[in-house]
């Protein structure tokens, strides 16, 4: 029987990292929901956000979570540039063409970042509330982990307000539901596409900053690849295009990765932490077996 303390620890740390996974997937889902584009370069934008947090902290001496603000700004500019330079031309193209385009964009970002920042694996130490001890059911997460998870929620709230409380959000939702219909009522679908793409990139880059604040190590030009992969899986688990679905699935994914470890740890001759990955993907298949459009997909 797994030790109860370990179980609690796993659940809490799973929830914390899960919130970060969740926010790191939301942008991917937004872009898919509106533009029907699977952004294969997703991880590169997360990596960019992580570097922003790194620079904000090490060069400017500000808390790395302010990288979220920088991420939103950089993401907005980058998102618009990419949209008007590339994505705009690919509306009528087969879905796969956009896949290739976003892949190439990802490579470009990786290599440009590497040219500027070098190939090294960077990191920092930031623990602003080290003096305080947080204890949840006997488990003591670090302050930066809690702050990162809270920032994820804040960013999610920001996105929620944009989508459910603004004219732009209304228009975006209209386009998601039925683009012809939206066009007929006078929505400039082209501009909504641009705005949604930019919004998706903004959230993704910003989530990279949150991720960096949570992990604080392992910031390098190729760090994003695993998040592209995890992002895909979480997005599908939650239901493509569903923003709350993405977030909930992210939390679930984090939770599951952590808790399944305890079960696997009892098996002789295997490497439990490695196998949790297999189990997490198995979970994806099971969810899709029961609900082929993900937890909250239509």
């Amino acid at each position, binding site marked *: 029987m797994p030790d109860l303390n370990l179980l609690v620890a796993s659940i809490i740390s799973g929830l914390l990292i899960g919130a970060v996974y969740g926010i790191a997937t939301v942008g991917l889902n937004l872009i898919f929901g509106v533009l029907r584009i699977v952004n294969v370069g997703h991880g590169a934008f997360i990596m960019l956000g992580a570097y922003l947090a790194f620079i904000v902290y090490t060069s400017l001496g500000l808390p790395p979570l302010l990288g979220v603000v920088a991420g939103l700004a950089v993401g907005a500019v980058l998102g618009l540039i990419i949209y008007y330079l590339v994505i705009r031309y690919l509306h009528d193209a087969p879905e796969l*063409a956009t896949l290739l385009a976003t892949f190439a964009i990802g490579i470009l970002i990786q290599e440009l970042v590497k040219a500027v920042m070098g190939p090294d694996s960077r990191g920092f130490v930031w623990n602003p509330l080290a003096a305080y001890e947080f204890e949840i059911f006997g488990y003591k997460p670090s302050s930066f982990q809690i702050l990162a998870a809270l920032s994820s929620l804040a960013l999610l709230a920001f996105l929620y307000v944009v989508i459910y409380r603004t004219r732009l959000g209304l228009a975006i939702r209209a386009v998601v539901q039925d683009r012809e219909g939206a066009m007929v009522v006078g929505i400039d679908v082209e501009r909504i596409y641009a705005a949604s793409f930019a919004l998706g990139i903004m959230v993704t880059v910003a989530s990279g900053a949150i991720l960096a604040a949570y992990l604080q190590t392992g910031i390098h030009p190729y760090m994003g690849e695993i998040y592209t992969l995890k992002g895909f899986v979480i997005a599908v688990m939650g239901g*493509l295009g569903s923003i709350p679905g993405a977030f909930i699935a992210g939390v679930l994914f984090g939770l599951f990765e952590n808790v399944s470890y305890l079960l696997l740890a009892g098996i002789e001759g295997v490497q439990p932490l490695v196998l949790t990955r297999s189990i997490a993907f198995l979970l994806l298949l099971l969810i899709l077996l029961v609900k*082929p459009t993900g937890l909250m997909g239509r």
Partner: protein
Amino acid sequence: MALVDPWTVREAVRKSLPALAIYAVLLAAYFLIPGKSQLFATILFYALLGQAFNIFMGMTGYVDFGYVAFLAVGAYAFGVTAMALASLGSPGWTLIPLGLLAAAGAAMILASMVGAIALRLRGAYFAIATIGVNEGLRYFFEGANILGGSIGLYIVKDLKTLFGDEGYQFMATIAADLLMFGLAGFTVLVTAWILSSRMGFALQAIREDEDAARALGVNVTKYKVLAFMTSGALGGMLGALNWALKEGVLEPETVFFIVYTVEAIIIVVLGGAGTLLGPIVGALIYIGLNYVSNVYAAPLLEGIGIKASGLHLILLAPILIAFIIAAPNGIIGLLRERIRNPTIRRFLV
């Protein structure tokens, strides 16, 4: 039903000629252009990867993001066969048919298992469920210590036992490539046959509108599974030849490497999805551009003082983007739109 309907055969032969011609040229280049044989072998590998992938993805519209798992499983099956035969003291030549059979078989088993679950899913859900299969398998190999775990399977020694030192040298360099040329020809014929037969029509109907296809009498599940297994089996044999026989070292990290799937997609999309020539043209462009930018362009730029590692990828990425904006349906797709001449069109298959 006439399986060998003469019209279908004629059509298939006609359709396969241009592709076979390109492979013939590649084969000639492989032998005649000195110092480039491995470049052509690499182009061949990617063309085959694209073609095998295309049978399922190009024709049904389903993107199997975990496709590389078929290559990996095929390579492992070939590796295990080699080890078994070496320990049994069998003659070397038996490995080729038995190993390829094992590779195709293992890949088909995987395809039927994955297909049973994932083929019920549509679009991106299918794509990503298959990523799950690939990654899940990789971590399973590593975590449960299957066939050498993360360290991998080393079969060079076994291959040397089977073929002798000289023989191994020949197998790993020339014979593996020639077998891949053979597999390429076979793949072209299979693809052309599918395109010219009922199956091709069924797959196209599925790609265009699966519900309508079902209502119109197409046994959607059967054709999807058939195409998936064909594509998987070809992939398995490709993995066996290019990785197991040619390199002799199989590590989960590199054989379940998802970038191969992405590259397969790039090649198919660049050339034209669902076409026979598309993947070959795509591979020529993709690997050709990569090689040229790596071997010629990057050193030129370095020569004028622009020094950055990764330079050639910085050059390559925008070119790829430009390509796809100019020809979103791929090169063959573009040519089909542009060229009205029916004679030439006949060869753009």
